[in-house]
């Protein structure tokens, strides 16, 4: 048993009584202010972005410093291993190179043919150029929202709404930017929705985050669509944020209307994340000329 935890009456000192009372007044008023701030932040999520961004400016260098040390330590076993296995690896790579050479030749000719056909169609290819490659340094590990902090900001040309991708696939998009840091909304966040299509048949769908690391994929056009296991979904470019054909997710269970899917990119501080220009397809020039042609044919 502990002693009475606290004597609430501070004695006969008026000053002590007043300061205790004032403490309660401040606490009640402050919690009301907190409730108002919370309502504002819920109704208008980017409202306090500047405050958070300035805090992230301070924390990002710390995180990236710790991450750098971690990377150095993590690299030690692999570099020792690579010294040991260098001969076997060399032979294997040599063989792989020979195998790939033939495929490369074929791919080159296909790429050339593709370029020629596209030029023939006068299709204006909008390539979403990269803005900057940076590392994700930390994440909202204790919150139910899924944010990460990127080690680059508006000074590096990062703007709100730009997509972020990793080597394996899409990671998310920029939500708030500071001078040297940015907040990324990850794909698995419950409020993230990405327009995607199935690689097999081009079926348009929406990939929505669930909050537990997986995505829900639902068809954008019609109900009663079957999803097979290992169906691969890539961005469709609809909506104008994400450039098309970036891998997003793979379905992990066969299901009917809504399919569970796992993202290709598993965000990690060890890898680079590439910020790209927001993809905004310009209106192709062909349809503008097309209507008079069709009317003449009638």
């Amino acid at each position: 048993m502990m002693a009475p935890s606290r004597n609430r009456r501070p004695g006969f000192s008026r000053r002590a009584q007043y300061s205790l009372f004032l403490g309660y007044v401040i606490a009640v008023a402050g919690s009301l202010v907190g409730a108002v701030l919370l309502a504002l932040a819920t109704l208008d999520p980017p409202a306090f972005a500047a405050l958070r961004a300035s805090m992230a400016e301070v924390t990002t260098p710390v995180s990236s410093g710790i991450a750098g040390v971690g990377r150095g330590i993590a690299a030690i076993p692999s570099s020792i291993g690579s010294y040991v296995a260098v001969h076997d690896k060399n032979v294997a790579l040599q063989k792989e190179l020979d195998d790939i050479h033939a495929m490369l030749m074929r791919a080159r000719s296909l790429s050339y043919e593709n370029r020629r056909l596209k030029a023939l169609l006068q299709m204006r290819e909008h390539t979403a150029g990269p803005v900057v490659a940076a590392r994700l340094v930390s994440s909202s590990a204790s919150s139910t929202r899924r944010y990460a902090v990127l080690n680059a900001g508006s000074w590096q040309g990062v703007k709100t709404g730009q997509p972020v991708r990793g080597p394996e696939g899409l990671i998310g998009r920029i939500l708030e930017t500071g001078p040297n840091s940015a907040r990324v909304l990850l794909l698995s966040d419950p409020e993230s929705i990405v327009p995607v299509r199935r690689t097999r048949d081009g079926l348009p769908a929406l990939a929505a985050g669930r909050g537990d690391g997986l995505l829900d994929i639902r068809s954008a056009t019609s109900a009663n669509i079957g999803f097979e296991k290992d169906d691969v979904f890539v961005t469709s470019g609809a909506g104008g944020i994400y450039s098309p054909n970036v891998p997003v997710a793979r379905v992990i269970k066969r299901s009917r209307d809504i399919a569970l899917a796992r993202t290709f990119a598993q965000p990690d501080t060890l890898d680079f994340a590439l910020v790209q220009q927001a993809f905004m397809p310009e209106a192709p020039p062909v349809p503008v000329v097309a209507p008079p042609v069709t009317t003449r044919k009638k």
Partner: protein
Amino acid sequence: MRAPTRGPFDAAPPPAAARMLPAASVVIGSLITIWPFITSFPILPPLGLMMLLGWRLTRPGVFPIWAPLPLGFFDDLISGQPLGNAMLLWTLCFFMVDLIDQRLVFRDFWQDWLIASGAFGFCLLAGRLIATPLSAHVDTVLLLQCAIACLLFPLVARLCIWLDRKRQGTT
């Protein structure tokens, strides 16, 4: 306003660093989330809140009743929850603990642990309802996070007691 004069037999007031230590430990608890570690679901317990309640329940006189406001504001800036979330919820927790202090005057650690567990459950659940839409599938993970927080509380309470001893120089 004149500071009360110190009598010749009163203890010397602790230096500034010792007075700031509890608040600093809560801030450091909140700052654990900047550790370079990308999680795909919420797994880190709310360490800022845990430190705050650890201090409040083991050393009741350390924090004034309004202390959760600035500490919660700081936590909101880095935790990813909407601003005002921790300010409001942490202060409500302090009010609840204050009320319980009046009713249940003699307590031992088990009851403190129960109070702290209730506070963690309340803050995590309310934070989830505020921050994420109801359709999100985070509830199982949230339960896990809550359990981790509750199980870690004795450790945090011991840490607070140890820090308090260091602070007063009695080791």
